[in-house]
């Protein structure tokens, strides 16, 4: 049976069309966030990225299925479901798909399905009209089969937006592949934790480059920092879902508190419930310093380490998976770009699977150049 990757689909030609994960708003269209909580929510506004792509002459192919609010889940069954955005581009239903990949699931699945994923520098793409999940990490990225198509689309959607105060003042960005002279760092402490296939993918791909073994500091706490900060922000961002202002409301209730509680219990999935409870836990008076504040301090150390690394390398190469299949531990592989707001490209490598390349803030052109085969 053919898998359906769309929630809403329009009758347009695939070659010049884009899909959106169903947490990006199209005015007067249904936007569910992949959640029962918003099963009937009609967007009153148009996301800036949608406006820009339509203005550029592209057509909307539809809204794709996603994990609930694209939250970083750790339930293994959720992590294994193919992302709608990856499925839609992979089956040729659209040229590109836009999504918000906080957890890294799409950055892993795209290359596994022969596709690229471009995770742009935080602050270059407007998030106006994106349902917030982890506000300090949310970033709209692009799934594409052809890297030129992806960077062309990125050139369209990037630039300052007065509706999103977290965008850089720069009005527009030009993406052209940098020609060469690349030096790539390979973190040996991460390579030790990956399998033979992952190591082979990295060494086969980087063989023609000037490479150097390095260390990705704090990697052993990346997953923890990601989960703590994510759960705290998700707890805040999902407090708005109360059955009063929009979205799902339970049918039977006896008062306001009962309305809130039954609505949220029936409306959220298991991972969201865990994240809400962990959010309350890490922000509680007894844990705030040890977990939340500590994680924010470590986040600064990681960012400072990134600055140091990219003073020496044009890109860092990382595998897509660890030896251990635990989705929580694997989230560490995608935390570096997410926590530091760095650009990354997940690169498909056929039977080798794929790798991810990460660079410094606003250095997408080096990643583009490496993808195009520049040395």
């Amino acid at each position, binding site marked *: 049976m053919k898998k359906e990757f769309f929630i809403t689909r329009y009758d347009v030609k695939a070659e010049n069309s884009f899909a959106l994960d169903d947490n990006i708003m199209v005015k007067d269209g249904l936007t569910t966030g992949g959640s029962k909580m918003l099963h*009937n*929510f*009609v967007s*009153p506004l148009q996301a800036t990225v949608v406006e820009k792509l339509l203005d550029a002459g592209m057509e909307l192919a539809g809204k794709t299925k996603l994990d609930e609010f694209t939250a970083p889940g*750790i339930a293994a069954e959720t992590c294994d479901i193919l992302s709608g955005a990856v499925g839609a581009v992979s089956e040729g239903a659209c040229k590109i798909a836009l999504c918000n990949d906080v957890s890294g699931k799409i950055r892993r699945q795209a290359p596994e399905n022969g596709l690229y994923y471009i995770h742009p520098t*935080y*602050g270059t793409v407007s998030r106006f009209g994106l349902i917030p999940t982890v506000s*300090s990490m949310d970033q709209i990225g692009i799934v594409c089969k052809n890297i030129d198509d992806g960077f062309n689309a990125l050139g369209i959607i990037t630039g300052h937006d*007065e509706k999103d*105060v*977290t965008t*850089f003042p720069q009005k527009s960005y030009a993406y052209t592949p940098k020609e060469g002279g690349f030096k790539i760092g390979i973190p040996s402490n991460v390579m030790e934790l990956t399998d033979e296939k992952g190591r082979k993918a990295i060494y086969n791909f980087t063989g023609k480059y000037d490479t150097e073994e390095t260390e990705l500091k*704090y990697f*052993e*706490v990346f997953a*923890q*920092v990601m*989960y*703590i900060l994510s759960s705290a922000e998700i*707890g805040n961002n999902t407090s708005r879902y109360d*059955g*009063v*202002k*929009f*979205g*799902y*409301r339970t049918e039977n*209730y*006896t*008062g306001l*508190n009962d*309305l*809130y*509680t*039954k609505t*949220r*219990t029936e409306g*959220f999935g*298991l991972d969201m*419930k*865990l994240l*809400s*409870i962990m*959010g*309350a*836990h890490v922000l509680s008076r007894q844990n705030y310093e*040890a*977990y939340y*504040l*500590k994680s*924010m*301090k*470590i*986040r*600064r*150390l990681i*960012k400072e380490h990134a600055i140091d690394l990219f003073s020496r390398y044009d890109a860092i190469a990382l595998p897509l998976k660890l030896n251990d299949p635990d989705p*929580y531990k694997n989230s560490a592989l995608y935390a570096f770009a997410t926590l*530091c*707001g760095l650009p990354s490209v997940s690169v498909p490598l056929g039977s080798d699977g794929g790798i991810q390349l990460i660079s410094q803030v606003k250095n997408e052109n080096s990643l583009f150049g490496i993808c195009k085969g520049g040395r």
Partner: protein
Amino acid sequence: MDLQTVLEYEAMVKLDLPESERIWIAEKASMLEDSFSELSKVDTEGIEPLISVLDLNYTLREDIPIKSISREEILSNSPEQCDGYFQVPKTIE
């Protein structure tokens, strides 16, 4: 995390979990909490917390009224409304 603690957090975040979900969450939360102990091995003495990765001086836009979303549009997504307001169950006896 024990089941009683999960129950206390449920009340805070307005959830009332079925027992099977409560047990799953208690197990996962305990696993997560065990892993959090690794954080204490990182020396963060004298380090300022990082609140945003952006080094931006946020500037406010000019204070000029702009057309926003109408009251009708906002209320149209509400499960229940009355006389132009969101409607909730009676809160005062």
